[in-house]
C-alpha cells in the first residue's frame, strides 16, 4: 500500500492565537484508507484539515512548523490553485460552499475554471453525480434540495476535480437522520468502490466506528489516540477524559465485564448492536449451561 498523506511534527499557531492550535502532530495515511477524526470543540480538527488542503498557510498565515505532504506535494511550497486536483474539501454547511444555482453548474464549476474541454467536463459531471447517487437531481435548483442532497452535491462538485484525497469537515452535523445516512453511505461507497482516501471529521462516534479503518482522537491540539476503532474504543477512559464517548454498546460491554470481574479482550469488544447481541447471547447461554 502506498502512502498518500504524510504529516511530520506539524505545529501551527494562528497569527492571533494565544497558543498553538496543533502541537507536534505526526501520522501517515495510506491510499484507500478511511480515517475518522474526532475530538472536542477547539481540539484542532478543522485546523488539521486546513493544513492538509493548503488553506494553511496559503490563506491563513501563522507560525507553521513541520511538514505536510499530500499525493507527493509539499503543501506549504505548492501552488494553491493546483491543490484541488489532489485534495478536495467538503465543509460543515453546504450552503457556505455552493456558488451556483443548479446542481449541474455546481459540479461543472471546478473543471470549467481549469479550462478543461467540454466533453471531458460532461463526462466528469456524469461520473461525479453517479458516484454520489444524485444523477436524478442534475437539473434541479440547489435551493430546492434537502440537506443530505445538498451535501452530496458538494461532494460531487469536489469529485469532478478528480482528487485523490477527500476531506470532510463534520459534513452531517446540520443534517437530519436521513441526510446523515445518505452522506455516510455515499462516502463509504466512494471509499470501497473506487478506493478514494477519506479523512472525515465527525462527532458521530457510532458512524466513525462503523465506517473508518482508523480513528484519530485530537484534544488540545495533540493527537492523543490513533488506531483501529476497536483499539480506540478500548481506551474509553481517555475518550471520556477529553469529553468524548464510545458507542453505547462498547460502553455497556466494558462496564458489564468490569462488574462481573472479567476481562474483556479487544476482539470481544462490540462496536455495533449486532456484535453486542451475540455477546449477550453467549453470556446467557453460558449461564444456562453452567
Amino acid at each position, binding site marked *: 500500500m502506498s502512502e498518500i498523506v504524510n504529516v511530520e511534527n506539524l505545529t501551527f499557531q494562528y497569527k492571533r492565537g494565544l497558543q498553538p492550535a496543533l502541537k507536534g502532530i505526526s501520522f501517515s495515511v495510506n491510499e484507500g484508507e478511511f480515517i475518522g477524526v474526532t*475530538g*472536542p*470543540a*477547539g481540539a484542532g480538527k478543522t485546523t488539521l484539515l486546513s493544513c492538509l488542503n493548503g488553506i494553511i498557510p496559503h490563506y491563513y498565515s501563522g507560525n507553521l512548523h513541520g511538514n505536510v505532504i499530500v499525493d507527493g506535494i509539499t503543501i506549504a511550497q505548492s501552488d494553491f490553485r493546483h491543490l484541488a486536483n489532489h485534495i478536495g474539501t467538503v465543509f*460543515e454547511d453546504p450552503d457556505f460552499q455552493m456558488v451556483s444555482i443548479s446542481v449541474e453548474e455546481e459540479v461543472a464549476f471546478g473543471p470549467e475554471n481549469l479550462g478543461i474541454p467540454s466533453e471531458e467536463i460532461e463526462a466528469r459531471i456524469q461520473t461525479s453525480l453517479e458516484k454520489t447517487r444524485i444523477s436524478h437531481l442534475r437539473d434541479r435548483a440547489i435551493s430546492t434540495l*434537502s*440537506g443530505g442532497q445538498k451535501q452530496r452535491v458538494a461532494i460531487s462538485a469536489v469529485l469532478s476535480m478528480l482528487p485523490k484525497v477527500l476531506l470532510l469537515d*463534520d459534513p452531517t*452535523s*446540520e*443534517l*437530519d*437522520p*436521513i*441526510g*446523515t*445516512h445518505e452522506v455516510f453511505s455515499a462516502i463509504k461507497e466512494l471509499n470501497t468502490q473506487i478506493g478514494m482516501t477519506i479523512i472525515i471529521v465527525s*462527532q458521530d462516534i*457510532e458512524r466513525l466506528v462503523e465506517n473508518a479503518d482508523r480513528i484519530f482522537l485530537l484534544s488540545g491540539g495533540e493527537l492523543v489516540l490513533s488506531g483501529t476503532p476497536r483499539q480506540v474504543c478500548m481506551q474509553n477512559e481517555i475518550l471520556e477524559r477529553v*469529553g*468524548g*464517548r464510545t*458507542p*453505547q*454498546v462498547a*460502553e*455497556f460491554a466494558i*462496564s*458489564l465485564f468490569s*462488574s*462481573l*470481574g472479567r476481562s474483556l479482550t479487544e476482539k470481544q469488544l462490540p462496536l*455495533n*448492536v449486532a456484535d*453486542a*447481541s451475540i455477546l*449477550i*447471547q453467549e*453470556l*446467557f447461554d453460558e*449461564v*444456562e449451561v*453452567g
Partner: protein
Amino acid sequence: MEPIIHVKDLNHVYPNGTHALRGVSLTVYPGEFVAIIGQNGSGKTTFVKHLNGLLRATSGEVWVDGLNINEHTVSEMARHVGYCFQNPDHQIFCDSVEKEVAYGPKNLGLSDTQIEGRIQESLKAVGLRDLRKVHPRDLSKGQRQRVAVASVLSMHPAVLNIDEPTTGQDYQDGIDMLNLIDRLNQAGHTILFITHDMPMVARYARRVVVFREGEILLDGSTREVFREIEKLRSTFLIPPQITMLAYQHRDFYPETILSTAEMVDQTLMHLNRHLRKPW
C-alpha cells in the same frame, strides 16, 4: 391541572401551497419535558412557531398559558413562551451579552432595577455571569447558545421552546446544554425541545412527540415511544444503540432500556438470577 399548551386540529399551509401541518392536536401540562423528533420537513419547527405566534394557524386553535394565541401579538406572547432558534446567530443582535439579555425586559417597560435583576438571574441560570460585558462574537458557539437562552429567560416565560440545542456542538457542550435545560425544567419551566439526537432524548426527555409529514405519528412517555421500533423506522428514526440491543432480547428485557447503566443493571440481575452461584 389546566394544560399550559392546548393545540386543537392545527393546520398550516405555507403561501407556496405546502401543507406543513395536518390536523395536529397536542396538550402539554405545566412542568413537562417534551422532546419533539422527526425528519426535516416533518413539521416540528412549523409547529413550535405557532406557540408564540411567529406563525399563524391556517385553521385550528392554539392556547398557551391560558391565552388564545390569535388574540395576541408575538411580543405579548414573549412573556409566556420563549423560543430559542437552532442557530443562536439568527437570534443574537446586540454588541454585548448584557444588552442582549436586557433587550426583552426593556421592551416590557421594566424599571432599571428590575432589568438589572433580570440580567443577573438569567446570566446566573446559564452560567455566564462573568461574561456580561463581552461581545457575543467573541464567545464560543456553546456560549452564544447560552446567551440566546438567557435573553429568552429574562422575559420569565412559562414555556421554553428550544430548537436543536445540541446541533453543531461537541458531545460535552451538548450534555452541558441539556443539563442547563434540565435545571430550568426543575425550576418550573415547561420545556419543548426539537432534536435529532436520540441518545439525548433517551437521557433527558420524559415525553416524546414524533412528527411525520405534518402529523403526529407517536406521542407518549420516552419509554413508550422508543418501544415502537417499527413505527419509528417508518420515518427513518432509530432509538439509541442500547435501546435497540435490549429490544432484540426483549424476552430478557421486558421494559424499554434507555441508558447503558440500566442495561448493565438488568443484565447483571438476569445473570445472577439464573446462576446457581452468583458471579
